[in-house]
């Protein structure tokens, strides 16, 4: 008999498992991937202090700690339905039904698809796919390719591809459409890039990013922007170039590109085809929240958090009885924030189960989420704090503080 079922063995789910098992709860974690860790698996970047963040090591550490506390981790199990019962939840999985009093959904995020003509050709994949293939499966996705979509995630993963001996020929923008939104517009992309510029090894980019904080400087920068673009880790980033089409017959052979104006519209006569044996499409992340919707949880649409998020309070409780959420399902942030949120959820659930004798650790953990967020190396969005506050206000209408 288990007290808590956690869906998702990523940084949030495993941290919640550890926190609640430490309070004496019997915990099971299910995940449809073949090994635990979620999207910690594959993360690899150098922090400003020169230390490497290796998600594989973090995943192994969390998994070992959880197991040592008696947490049962079931991989290769998919959850496809949830129904409320009198005393909790009935969870439909590919391994049969599981009945449990308390449920935590920590399903993380999914990559937003940005359709580009030719994107179904073999050799075209999402940027996250390339990360997993490179750092987890340890197989190169190609020799020389193009990354379509310039954002925090795609810049970080392009660097990871380079570390593994895969050449990123250049990073360019997706076609400017209603689907790609601002991701196809040079000015908007430049602004979002400035938030990661401190990670760049080049002093020039660091200094430049400080100079370009003001909007008129950014416009000027785009207008004067050299056609060759600039480079991070010698990877050319071309904000004034767009992908029109991915070309090839049985697999990727190249990308048809064009120069674009500052608003993202292609400039006549600038088209050319560049060779590539793979293409990565980076559309950014959105909370993977279908299961919370099935559970009947109310949602908020908060662009700074990545889209629709289930309502929840600081204790990671949702308005639905016995249902909790943690990690990127609540908004797109770094794995460190997800881990801190998981700890809150685990303690909060222990409290609901009557196993938390002292509430100090829970309030400390809630405080810790804010501290980690403040110190995060990678800020996915400048308005995260405001977005979180909005979700808190909306949730207060459902749950008394």
């Amino acid at each position, binding site marked *: 008999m288990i007290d808590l079922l956690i869906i998702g063995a990523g940084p949030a789910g495993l941290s919640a498992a550890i926190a609640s098992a430490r309070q004496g709860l019997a915990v099971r974690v299910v995940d*449809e*991937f*073949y090994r635990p860790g979620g*999207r910690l698996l594959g993360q*690899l970047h150098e922090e400003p202090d020169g230390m*490497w963040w*290796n998600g*594989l090591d973090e995943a192994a550490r969390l998994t070992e700690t959880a197991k040592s506390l008696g947490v049962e981790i079931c991989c*290769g199990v*998919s959850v496809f339905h949830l129904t409320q019962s009198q005393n909790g939840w009935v969870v439909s999985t590919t391994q049969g039904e599981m009945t449990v009093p308390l449920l935590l959904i920590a399903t993380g995020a*999914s*990559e937003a*698809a940005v359709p580009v003509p030719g994107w*179904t*050709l*073999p*050799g*075209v*994949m*999402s940027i*996250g*796919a*390339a990360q*997993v*293939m*490179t*750092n987890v*499966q*340890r*197989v*190169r*996705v190609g020799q020389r390719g193009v990354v379509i979509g310039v954002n925090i995630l795609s810049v970080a993963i392009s660097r990871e591809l380079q*570390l*593994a*001996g895969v050449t990123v020929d250049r990073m360019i923008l997706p076609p400017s459409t209603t689907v790609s939104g601002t991701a196809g517009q040079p000015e908007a992309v430049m602004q979002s890039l400035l938030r990661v510029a401190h990670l760049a090894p080049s002093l020039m980019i660091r200094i430049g990013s400080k100079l370009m904080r003001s909007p008129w400087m950014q416009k000027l920068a785009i207008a004067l922007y050299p056609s060759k673009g600039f480079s991070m880790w010698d990877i050319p980033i071309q904000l004034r170039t767009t992908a029109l089409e991915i070309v090839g017959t*049985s*697999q990727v052979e190249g990308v048809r590109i064009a120069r674009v104006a500052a608003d993202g519209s292609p400039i006549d006569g600038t088209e050319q085809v560049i060779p590539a044996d793979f293409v990565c499409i980076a559309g950014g992340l959105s909370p*993977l929240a279908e299961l919370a919707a099935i559970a009947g949880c109310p949602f908020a649409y908060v662009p700074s958090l990545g889209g629709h998020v289930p309502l929840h309070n600081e204790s990671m409780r949702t308005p639905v009885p016995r249902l909790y959420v943690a990690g990127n399902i609540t908004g797109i942030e770094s794995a460190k924030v997800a881990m801190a949120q998981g700890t809150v959820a685990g303690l909060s659930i222990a409290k609901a189960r009557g196993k938390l004798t002292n509430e100090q650790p829970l309030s400390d953990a809630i405080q810790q989420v804010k501290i980690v967020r403040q110190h995060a190396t990678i800020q996915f969005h400048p308005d995260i704090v405001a977005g979180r506050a909005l979700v808190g206000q909306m949730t207060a209408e459902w749950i008394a503080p």
Partner: protein
Amino acid sequence: MSQRIDHHPVLGSLGDRKQLSFHYNDSVYMAYEGETIAGALLAAGVRTLRVHEEKGTPRGIYCNIGHCYECRVHVDGIPTVRACMTLVQEGMQVNAGSLLPTPLKKGGHHA
């Protein structure tokens, strides 16, 4: 040149791994223990995992973490298995998805 990243400047080297053999369509391929079907086939230079059921155009992995189902294959006779989520087992028979009949469609094809 092998597509496998045996040595990585930060993640280190892969140790000795057990070799497995499996079938993809009519050919035999080698995999290492812990490799997914998608990973082992990509390492062997195979990117096409199926053709579109109606159009017959080639498809491979897209998301590589189980969300998109673009990499669906048949494994030991079971359809709609995600190649990106499934580890290779010794002697496994993997088959690419193929064109399905569209007899009611104008200009469609029959089984």
